[in-house]
């Protein structure tokens, strides 16, 4: 038992296996330097930060940065970003979450080895392309200008969904569909891997038993496939809920512009603009901290609920 071990005994264990600890050392140092040390920098959220003085020596101002954020000059932008974060994330879950599951379900039906291999290779591919590439593609494909029209813009015009002179990139009302669809296109195939693996792990005898009882395909999915992949599903939902407030900033920064801020600006892009572009670091950090605490609470909450209802949890 670990509890009964004295420090002396522990030290002798460490000495015996010192090589193991040497192997662990680089990892610990890396995380301390680049992940944990900056956490101390969150102090800046409570300070009147002066770059000349540094984080520690700047004046402590309590919650005044948070007050400025929520009620001061930036409050409109902050709450708009806060709302957008939720809305974009919720859309992402509602539209994005089920698609990989269905894709895996269909993928598992395919008996033709080459066909499924080729289609898997195709559908995972966008995940490995950079955000710069993806947004570069999106911007040119939906571009609608004097000289040329992108293929997707043209398709939408022909279908009568948008008028001739709409430029999707510059219109606030089109930002979210554009962002969500791009996300689905990029990640759905790749996200389906884990569900696919879960379905493949279901024992074939269960399917046979249902067949003997005369079950049809929908019943098969309802009574065998779904319960079989439930643990995976629950884990994925917890993971997803935990990140509800962390909408990836990179693609938004690459895709949005001043015309679309009203629907596109999320907390992390707000932090970027206020904290890095305009150099108000303390205010940016307080928005960051606000974000992080809610996100953290969400993960813990999701994990707790899941443990209560299903006995599946992350920890």
């Amino acid at each position: 038992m670990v509890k009964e071990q004295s420090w002396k005994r522990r030290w002798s264990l460490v000495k015996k296996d010192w090589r193991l600890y040497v192997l662990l050392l680089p990892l610990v140092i890396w995380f301390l330097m680049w992940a944990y040390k900056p956490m101390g920098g969150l102090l800046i959220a409570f300070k009147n930060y002066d770059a000349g003085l540094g984080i520690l020596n700047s004046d402590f101002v309590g919650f005044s940065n948070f007050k400025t954020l929520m009620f001061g000059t930036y409050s409109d932008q902050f709450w708009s970003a806060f709302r957008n974060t939720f809305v974009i994330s919720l859309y992402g879950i509602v539209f994005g979450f089920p698609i990989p599951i269905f894709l895996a379900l269909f993928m598992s039906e395919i008996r033709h080895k080459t066909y499924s291999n080729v289609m898997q290779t195709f559908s995972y591919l966008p995940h490995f392309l950079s955000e710069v590439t993806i947004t570069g593609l999106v911007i040119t494909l939906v571009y609608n200008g004097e000289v040329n029209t992108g293929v997707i813009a043209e398709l939408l015009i022909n279908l009568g969904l948008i008028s001739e002179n709409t430029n999707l990139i510059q219109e606030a009302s089109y930002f979210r569909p554009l962002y969500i669809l791009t996300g689905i296109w990029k990640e759905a195939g790749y996200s389906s891997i884990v569900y696919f693996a879960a379905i493949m792990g279901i024992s074939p005898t269960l399917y046979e038993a249902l067949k003997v009882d005369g079950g049809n395909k929908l019943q098969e999915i309802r009574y065998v496939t779904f319960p079989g992949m439930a643990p995976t599903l629950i884990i994925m939902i917890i993971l997803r809920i935990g990140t509800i407030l962390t909408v990836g900033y990179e693609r938004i920064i690459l895709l949005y512009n001043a015309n679309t801020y009203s629907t596109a600006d999320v907390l992390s892009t707000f932090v970027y603009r206020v904290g890095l572009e305009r150099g108000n670091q303390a205010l940016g950090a307080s928005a960051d901290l606000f974000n992080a605490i809610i996100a953290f609470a969400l993960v813990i909450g999701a994990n707790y609920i899941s443990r209560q209802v299903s006995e599946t949890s992350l920890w």
Partner: protein
Amino acid sequence: MDRLNRSEKIFRVLSYILVGAFGIMALYPVVYAFSASISGKMAYESGQVRLFPKDINFSVYQLLYEDKGFWISYINTLFYTFFGTAWSMFISVTGAYALSKKKLLFRRQFNFFVVFTMWFTAGMIPQYLNYVNIGVDNRWGIVVAFGIQAYNIILLRNTFEAVPLEIEEAATVDGVKEFQLLTKIFIPMSKAGIATVTLFYATSRWNGYFWARILLTDSKELPVQVYMRILVENYQSMFDDMPVNLAYAADSYVYAILVCSIIPVLLIYPHIQKYFAKGVNLGGVKG
């Protein structure tokens, strides 16, 4: 062959169609980018390029070939990817190996130490200040300060845990020590996991954009993603200064760089993709 009833037949046909449609949709923009890069200006601008190229000419690649900035950025990206992946793998493999050992004191705590960073990060501003303080504004800084991901470490740890205990015990009895145990037994026996994680690290290095753009001060050190982005931001005005009677459209130049930036991914990824199902499957996250 399995005998199918009607609902199963319908479902199966539907599956072939839907999976096929999704696969083609995923691939389409990549094919389109290539076609657009080698199509003639007139054909492209009048919207005749849908999938296959029209009036094929490679003149835009000629121009790209002569573009010094592009080559510098391309070589920089190769540098970041090669050294960055090596660095990420070194730290992750050694660390994950130690974390996989039951005899490691405070094993749970060390695991939590890693996993915690998946849920809670300092955020952009404190990270930025930390990078600036330590001086991450050059090539080696980017290599060292980035690219370790908790998720990948957990993946590797689980891979190592799957190595049978008997093999390790037999080797230990023969007097093999940790370092050799890792290089001679654990690494060769964990090919799927290692290949998968290497690919993850390599693609995230190859695709790295945001911090490189913010931190790097010397334009000679920019990676190709940043170079490409700056081009996308400026290309309309850039081409206003060029002769009107070019053989290719302004977009073609962007598409050509895009194609060049995708090629390495296309070359490597299919070879490693076969390990995914196995490699990622092991990635159940436990603290």
